């Protein structure tokens, strides 16, 4: 076998005094794709950045070496290079694609200028030649009308298009190694699919190697040859993609594979990583993993739901946003974010709402809470049109309907202890007779969402993302609602944390009999939670049916496309 292109030996990275990466070693051959999987904080991004020597100022490499074979067939330790030497490697021999296409491009330069800059820097071409080259690359990454795209600013492109620009920027100097750090995480599944295909195609053309960092096992299964699984800065397992996915050895890997909600069946509870690590070598896991709903059980549930009254009824709902304004700022044209939609949710039912970004699902959720005004149509909650409510009736409606938002980081006031945050809605609606009783109830709620009562006096920044989302859930529960809108409430979380939060939501549903409107872009999550699924596209309902039916037997082309785009690789691990 040839000398590997990249070899990392006993690499350790410290941030201030914490070990973020701890003694990791792996190697990568020319033309190979290595997937690095792990949850947030596992050190996978830091590993990627350390290869490029792009760590933040407080990150220090405390030991190890990173051996890289340059185009001149010399093996160099990237860590020993001087600043001006490593600059010749960056962009030319090793290139990087980042996660956030929205913020990774400079907003004040055109996309073309930013790509041409790299070409001029490393190939010493004139501006005109570089421009030709750039247009060529914009064409290669399949951007429409490359000549025009050259002069466009990043904000004029969509997320997927920006990521294509990033790919062109990374590939344009034919680097031997490309490090892609979660390049598709911020994109819709259908866009993700096309981007992955594009990357694969260009990689084959260039015969370059790829390090693909992701938290999404499905994507890794699709694209990688070898996989490295990282947990808390250590590599817990590495091997061929088939080995990892078909016969994982480490309990953490097993847990990661199992805690993704499956598409082909509906589980009662999701297994969590903790189960695997605690109960290593115990047979108990198997029984847990196989706790799926039988077809009879699902039918029974659906039948019992038929008996229930409609708690929410949406009729011919249209919500508009101004898309064009005239000189004086008066809107002249409208965009239908939600276009003539109608559906019902029964008491105790969970309706899943899937669709890509911009399809109107969040707008619909907000309108149901009367946070938007509709252009037309009505929404009946418990038989009353919510847009006719005012005064005490409106207060009562607000109490009975709650929302859980997507981003647990920005939906909690950083200056408010979590106790007061949860207590506030109680005070607004004057539930419970006095302060003390409310406080006791808050502590009870904290326990209910698996936090501790003594957390009452802490501030949001002391909690992790998953814990914060549980706090937000507790806040929604504080007023004893009947209907909860979950707007992408797990999409900012790691798979393992996602499993815990989803389990909590199901437990609470079983205990209190809530109805949920569960909004998500992730079909597998929606499938786990919902009795029925509604697929939205461009403001309209594509399909509305029983969850299993949608997945097994999609009727509309759009749904088929969505299901088809979900990355799963050739392994049947879900």
């Amino acid at each position, binding site marked *: 076998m040839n000398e590997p292109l990249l070899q990392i030996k006993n690499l350790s990275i410290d941030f201030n005094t914490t070990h973020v990466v701890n003694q990791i070693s792996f190697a990568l051959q020319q033309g190979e794709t290595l997937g690095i999987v792990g949850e947030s904080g596992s050190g996978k991004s830091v590993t990627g950045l350390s290869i490029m020597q792009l760590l933040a100022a407080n990150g220090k490499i405390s030991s190890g070496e990173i051996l890289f074979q340059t185009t001149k067939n010399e093996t160099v330790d990237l860590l020993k290079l001087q600043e001006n030497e490593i600059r010749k490697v960056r*962009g030319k021999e090793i290139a990087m694609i980042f996660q956030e296409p929205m913020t990774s491009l*400079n907003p004040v330069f055109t996309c073309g200028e930013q790509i041409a800059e790299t070409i001029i820097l490393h190939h010493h071409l004139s501006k005109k030649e570089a421009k030709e080259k750039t247009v060529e690359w914009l064409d290669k990454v399949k951007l429409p009308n490359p000549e025009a795209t050259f002069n466009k600013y990043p904000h004029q492109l969509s997320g997927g298009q920006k990521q294509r620009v990033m790919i062109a920027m990374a590939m344009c100097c034919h680097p031997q190694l490309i490090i892609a750090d979660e390049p598709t995480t911020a994109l819709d599944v259908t866009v993700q699919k096309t981007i992955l295909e594009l990357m694969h195609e260009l990689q084959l053309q260039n015969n370059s190697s790829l390090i693909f960092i992701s938290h999404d096992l499905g994507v890794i299964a699709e694209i990688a040859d070898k996989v490295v699984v990282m947990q808390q800065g250590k590599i817990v397992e590495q091997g061929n993609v088939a080995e990892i996915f078909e016969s994982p050895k480490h309990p953490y890997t097993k847990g990661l594979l199992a805690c993704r909600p499956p598409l082909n069946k509906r589980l009662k509870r999701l297994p969590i990583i903790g189960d695997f690590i605690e109960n290593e070598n115990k047979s108990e896991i198997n029984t847990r993993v196989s706790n799926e709903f039988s077809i009879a059980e699902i039918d029974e549930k659906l039948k019992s739901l038929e008996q229930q009254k409609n708690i929410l009824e949406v009729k011919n709902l249209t919500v508009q946003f101004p898309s064009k304004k005239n000189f004086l700022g008066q809107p002249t044209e409208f965009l239908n974010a939600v276009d003539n939609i109608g559906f019902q949710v029964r008491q105790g039912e969970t309706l899943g709402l899937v669709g890509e970004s911009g399809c109107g699902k969040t707008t619909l959720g907000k309108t149901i809470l009367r946070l938007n005004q509709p252009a037309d149509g009505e929404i009946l909650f418990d038989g009353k049109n919510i847009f006719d409510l005012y005064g005490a009736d409106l207060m009562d409606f607000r109490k009975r309907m709650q929302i859980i938002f997507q981003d647990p980081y920005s939906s909690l006031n950083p200056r408010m202890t979590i106790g007061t945050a949860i207590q506030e809605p109680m005070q607004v609606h004057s539930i419970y007779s006095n302060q003390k009783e409310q406080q006791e109830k808050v502590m009870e709620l904290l326990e209910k969402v698996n936090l501790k009562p003594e957390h009452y006096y802490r501030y949001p920044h002391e909690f992790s993302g998953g814990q914060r989302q549980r706090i937000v859930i507790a806040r929604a529960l504080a007023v004893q609602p009947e209907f909860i809108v979950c707007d992408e409430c797990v999409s900012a979380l790691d798979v393992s944390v996602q499993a815990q939060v989803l389990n909590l939501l199901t437990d609470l549903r079983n205990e209190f009999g809530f109805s949920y409107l569960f909004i998500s872009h992730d079909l597998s999550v929606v499938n786990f939670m919902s009795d029925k699924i509604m697929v939205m596209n461009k403001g309209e309902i594509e399909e509305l049916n029983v969850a299993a039916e949608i997945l097994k037997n999609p009727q509309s082309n759009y749904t088929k496309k969505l299901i088809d785009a979900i990355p799963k690789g050739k392994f049947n691990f879900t």
Partner: protein
Amino acid sequence: MLRYILKRLLFFIPTLIIISLLAFVISVKSPGNPVERIISSTQGGGEESATSANHNDLVKFWKHKLGLDLPLFYFSMQSSVLPDSLQQITDNDERKIAENKILSNAGFQKFIPKISFHFHNQYHRWLFGDGETTKGILRGDFGISIITQQKIADLISEKLPWSLFFSLCSILIAYLISIPLGVFAASKKGTRLEKIVSILVFMLPALPAFWIATLLMMTFSNPDVINVLPSSGVKPVEGFTEGISWFEKVKITLPYLILPIICFTYSSIAFLSRTMRVGMLETLSMDFIRTARAKGLSEKTVIWKHAFRNSLLPIITVFANVFPMAIGGSVILETVFTLPGMGFSIYQAIGNHDYPVIVAVFTITGFLTMLGYLVSDILYAMVDPRIKFEK
């Protein structure tokens, strides 16, 4: 871009109208009777020659001349029983008495309002002039100072250029120094040199301007220490010699400007460089800076090409606020260096209740504020392409 500027300009019109209305109201409602003041000052001291009838004629004459017999605004609303001719009564008190008499005799009709329109009115005259005695503020006629009897326009055209010159010079120099300083402080954050420079820069605004000014004068224009710079004025006391070229004039004037400009400038450097530093630090933590470094660009290119333009927005915002201050000048520095700026004139006008001057300054400041905002809006659009496209 042109469309953007036009739109901005269009939005300024209503604001300018409001500024002019406010200034007008202040000038009308300012205490004192301008007619009486003029009469007493033209008659000279203490002569008892003016009889009562003569005096009334004079009042009528001056009221007409100053346009005070005109209605206030383009339209007016009053009780329908009051006749228009009431306006002819020149004395305010007499008019009030007449009004009350009519109203108390009238029946329910006095509650019916009447709107009347007047093309010739005081506001119109104030803005556009009457074609004879006044040209209106839009053509630069701000009236006459009631203290010095000097034309306000002359006063302003004499003093304002100097104020503007000193302020704009100091703004320009302050920006030229503090932008690189801020960039330096951000890019070398945490190094010893940066810390020392930052501490020194932050001590500057704590030093009072008059103290620094005196200190500089005592050092650089003191025959006992170094006598290289003149200590006061903006030109030689004896004036320029006849027939010297423009270039020669500048060469002679320059030494007079150095000390004042230093004093005008130093205190704003700390604030500006701090604003720049904060903006730069924020930009440097952005994802696209990491992208730029990943391309293999040198640190210099990363900072001056990729980060610089993005961090200019806060410092442009500050510009809009600095600009209107330019007219005010500094009373203290003008006094210390005997400079012919606006600051001292404004100070005097306020002390003497010279309302026409105050109103003129108010109007010009309002206008300059608007101009500052316009300039910074245009700069915004030039720096950040995202702004232009927002319709």
